[in-house]
């Protein structure tokens, strides 16, 4: 055990977030209400800037605290992506709760703490850190789901998420303990040096950990909770939940699988592919039957999970594509949920029929939603196309031909229900005149929508900088190279 001041410097971005979180709690305690969103935004931005790899040597991953946690390089990118996810969500939160008629000041602290959990989860190199990160994140998410205490569905969402999440965490923890039992270490990199192939407990151990993660990313068959929870969760937070927490879980799962197993076990591989294929097909088919936008996006997120899992099963190239995908998905889905939140005062406003004719009433609103939906459907030149294309491309190169073709087919079929929403927005007359006050025209969510829509377009036309950045971080990460990459 040796304390190293260098480690502390390396983890400054995370410390920054922690300080922000504590300050937010204090400001909340002393009723500095108007300060809260600014403080949260400032803290997240500061942490993001601190994590930016400015020096040329920053390309490499640096393990800190006795190899328990990763910083620098790819880990920095993950940090930045997650902070960005939270920042994007921040645009929509205050306005939403104001219109829902509920003052919820603690959300800012919860948001920041959940980001800390996510970063710990994604950048961990140790089972213990993974678990602590996962729980920090999850507990914050449970609270988020139940924040709108006046809505029954929100309470229901919180409880459901909590109960099922704990259930899944049980499996995860069980798997971790087994893995520790076999290898005698909790560190990913040390595990890869232990030959575990002959051990009968090895497969169940990895499988249980996988199950824990599959629950968090809502992959088939652990997806049941998703629609109910997303529907009940306050809308902008549902967007955050659907993107940032999944991003963190995907990266953690990828790092875990790739670092502990130099060669992906064949059965685990097929479980991943199977879950991916069924998620894509199931998510897209069921989404087509939804009339509630939040449920629709929930099922669509199950489908998107399928695409990402396919990428995770496709080796290194797939993993790069996965990180890229998660980043793009964060942008477009936070935007889509944000827009739904802007057009919502009561719960029923998320019904598709309430959106009739909105594209003509509020042109920019309709355009922005169309951008996000087209991007989610994977139509060029929007960002969603390139990210999806890269994932399928990686799958094809890993000779997962059938899975890739099913994926392309599912996404083509999936376009249908996104388009249905656009039909409602543009080609259908609104029957009720009651929702004329909507959507919200507040400053902050409007800016948020513009930023996100612009990013969706820009990253579709210029995806290269981000993609090559991720790629170069992979080259520079010595640890990943060691672990069979």
């Amino acid at each position, binding site marked *: 055990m040796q304390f190293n001041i260098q480690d502390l410097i390396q983890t400054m971005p995370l410390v920054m977030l922690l300080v922000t979180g504590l300050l937010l709690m204090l400001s909340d305690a002393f009723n500095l209400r108007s300060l809260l969103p600014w403080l949260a935004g400032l803290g997240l931005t500061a942490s993001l800037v601190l994590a930016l790899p400015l020096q040329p040597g920053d390309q490499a991953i640096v393990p800190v605290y006795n190899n328990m946690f990763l910083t620098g390089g790819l880990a920095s990118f993950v940090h930045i992506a997650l902070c960005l996810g939270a920042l994007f969500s921040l645009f929509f939160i205050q306005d939403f709760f104001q219109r829902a008629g509920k003052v919820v000041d603690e959300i800012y602290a919860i948001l920041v703490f959940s980001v800390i959990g996510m970063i710990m989860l994604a950048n961990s190199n140790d089972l213990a850190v993974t678990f602590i990160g996962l729980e920090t994140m999850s507990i914050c998410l449970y609270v988020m789901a139940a924040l709108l205490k006046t809505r029954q569905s929100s309470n229901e969402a919180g409880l459901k998420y909590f109960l099922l999440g704990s259930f899944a965490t049980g499996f995860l923890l069980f798997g971790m303990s087994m893995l520790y039992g076999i290898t005698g270490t909790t560190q990913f990199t040390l595990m890869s040096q232990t030959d575990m192939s002959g051990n009968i407990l090895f497969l*169940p151990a990895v499988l249980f950990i996988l199950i824990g993660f599959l629950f968090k990313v809502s992959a088939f068959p652990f997806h049941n909770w998703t629609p109910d929870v997303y529907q009940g969760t306050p809308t902008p937070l549902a967007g955050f939940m659907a993107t940032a927490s999944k991003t963190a879980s995907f990266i953690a799962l990828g790092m875990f699988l790739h670092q502990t197993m130099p060669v992906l076990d064949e059965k685990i591989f097929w479980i991943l592919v199977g879950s991916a294929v069924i998620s894509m097909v199931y998510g897209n088919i069921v989404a087509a039957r939804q009339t509630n936008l939040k449920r629709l996006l929930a099922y669509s997120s199950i489908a998107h999970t399928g695409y990402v899992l396919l990428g995770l099963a496709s080796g290194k190239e797939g993993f790069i594509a996965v990180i890229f995908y998660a980043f793009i998905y964060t942008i477009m889905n936070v935007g889509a949920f944000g827009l739904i939140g802007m057009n919502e005062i009561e719960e029923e406003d998320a019904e598709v029929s309430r959106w009739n004719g909105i594209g003509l009433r509020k042109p920019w609103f309709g355009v922005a939603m169309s951008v996000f939906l087209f991007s989610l459907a994977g139509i060029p030149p929007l960002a969603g196309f390139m990210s999806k294309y890269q994932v399928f491309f990686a799958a094809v190169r890993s000779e997962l031909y059938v899975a890739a073709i099913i994926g392309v087919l599912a996404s083509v079929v999936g376009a*249908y229900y996104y388009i249905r929403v656009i039909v409602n927005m543009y080609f259908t007359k609104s029957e009720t005149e009651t929702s004329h006050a909507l959507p919200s025209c507040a400053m902050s969510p409007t800016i948020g929508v513009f930023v996100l829509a612009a990013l969706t377009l820009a990253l579709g036309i210029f995806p290269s900088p981000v993609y090559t950045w991720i790629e170069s971080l992979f080259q520079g990460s010595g640890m990943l190279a060691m672990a069979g990459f």
Partner: protein
Amino acid sequence: MEALLPLIILSPFIGAAIIGIWGLFSSSFRHQEKLIGTIATLAVVLPFVLVLNTFLSYEHGKPVSFHLFSWMATKNFSVDFSYVLDEASLLMGLIVTGIGSLIHIYSIAYMHHDKGFYRYFLYLNLFIFSMNNLILGDNLLVLFLGWEGVGACSYFLIGYWFEDMAKAMAAQKAFVANRIGDFALLVAMFIIFTSTGSLKFSEISLSGDVAFWVALLVFIAATGKSAQIPLYVWLPDAMAGPTPVSALIHAATMVTSGIYLIARMSEVFLQVPGVMILVAVIGGLTAILAALIAIAQNDIKKVLAYSTVSQLGFMFMALGAGAFSTAIFHVMTHAFFKACLFLGSGSVIHAMEHMHLVDDPQDIRTMGKLGKYMPSTSKTFWISTLAIAGIFPLSGFFSKDEILGKLFAAGHEHVMYYAVWAVGMITAVLTAFYMTRVTFLTFNGKKRFPEEGHPHESSPLMTIPLWILAGLAIVGGFLGLPAVVGHGHYNWISEHWLSISKAPIIVNRILHADLTTEWILIGISFCVAIGGVYFAYSLYSKYDLQADLKVKSFFGSMYRVMENKFFIDEFYNAAIIRPFVWLGNYAIMPFDKKFIDGLVNGSGYLVYSAGSVFRQLQSGLVQKYALLMFIGVVVLLGYAIFG
């Protein structure tokens, strides 16, 4: 000038951006029709000038290319926004930007006082941008960008007048049909990339099974976009959009992109004769089916729509015979006369609408004798009708005759081509007949609208494009004189312009019939067209609308089938949509409800009776979810251990 070439792509985009952004935020701008129309038109005229300039100074065999920036550059995969102006893309570029410009001008008058004027021109400019990407892109991914883009724009423009649900449904139908094609194209792209490592047209070379699958998938993609059996059903419904859109997108440009794509991939197609025959057969079937349907339609735009499907079928026949450049030739002549026909029908509909006397301004049964009131529209419409019917020496004669000639010559390769040729001949007769019918019933014959109606000729903004297109429809055919004239030396398109046998431009199968046969074929074509037109004209001038009854008795019970479009929509409804709904309602839902719930309830009952621990911890659905998760765990664990 080289430095200005990127503007071919960027200018429509900039136009769309200006109109879109300005229109989004300034409601006063939305009503400045002149300004919007000028911006939008200029944004398309500029690329036309640039393409024309390149075309005029083009050195044969030396494609001009330009590069915007790199789209995606990774270690294993890179693709650029780079474009190439070669023989094929220049020709298409001229058609798209040229006709696009005319239709922009026409639209200014046609869309006058429309609520969404700026939206309309925004979509139109975006369409031209996408279309330019589609035809000029030097790789498949940029083509795909355009491919999806034109689909989306067409979708928005079909549903432009959203007031009635049918139009929204038509838009949706178009989108879904196109997505099936997109799927095929995407898969083809994956195959091409894995086998050649590039998506550039100039680097694609395939053989064997790969070539077969790619050709088949590209063909499926083309049937979606270019409205062939079995995916053609969306095009007639697409007529719900504004008429200039039907002219631009659903007649002259977008629907021909499938043909263009196949021509680009000609080298791959030539390696798989089986697929080539399939292409020809599908084309032939589509052509005759659509022509038969067109005979029994009374909506002027529907007739034109089915005639478009039918003419696209002709182009596919040419592709199937391996006469790729002939297909492009027909694309060009068809663009002239069909755009003119649609714009003419738009002019008619405009006039009928402004009378406010008829329920359906598109129904030819309430028209008649309009030629007296609308001389320009009537004359240009008649010219184009004669052109599409294949009357010598109008453009349709040359291109259609060349297609039929090539098909006949291809008969040496496979006997199936003779059958397709015969079908083509019959279709040519039918085409001459139904086009004469619709034109006669619209402009000549008895006046069938209320006596007090005084339809007016449209404004010059609308008639000038009509005259230009009619002029092109007259002379366009001389670009491809038949082989009998100077042994093909005067067939500029096929023998000169597109004669380079080099991928990626266009490779033709060498097809030659001896001169005597050619003369005979030309003679047949000539007579067939004249005969069809003459027969229809005499029939309808004698009996007017009652002539339909004669046609009805001629076809017998078949007529009802034609009238109802061969019940294809009903068939799709019963064979595809209904089963899907059924699957949803009776298979998946019950699976959810009965099977899974049953499973859950059953096991829940076990848990319940075994002890009340579970019941107290959880309530309602959560229990089921948890149990489902548990079942998932058990299955996965079972697979991991025993599988």
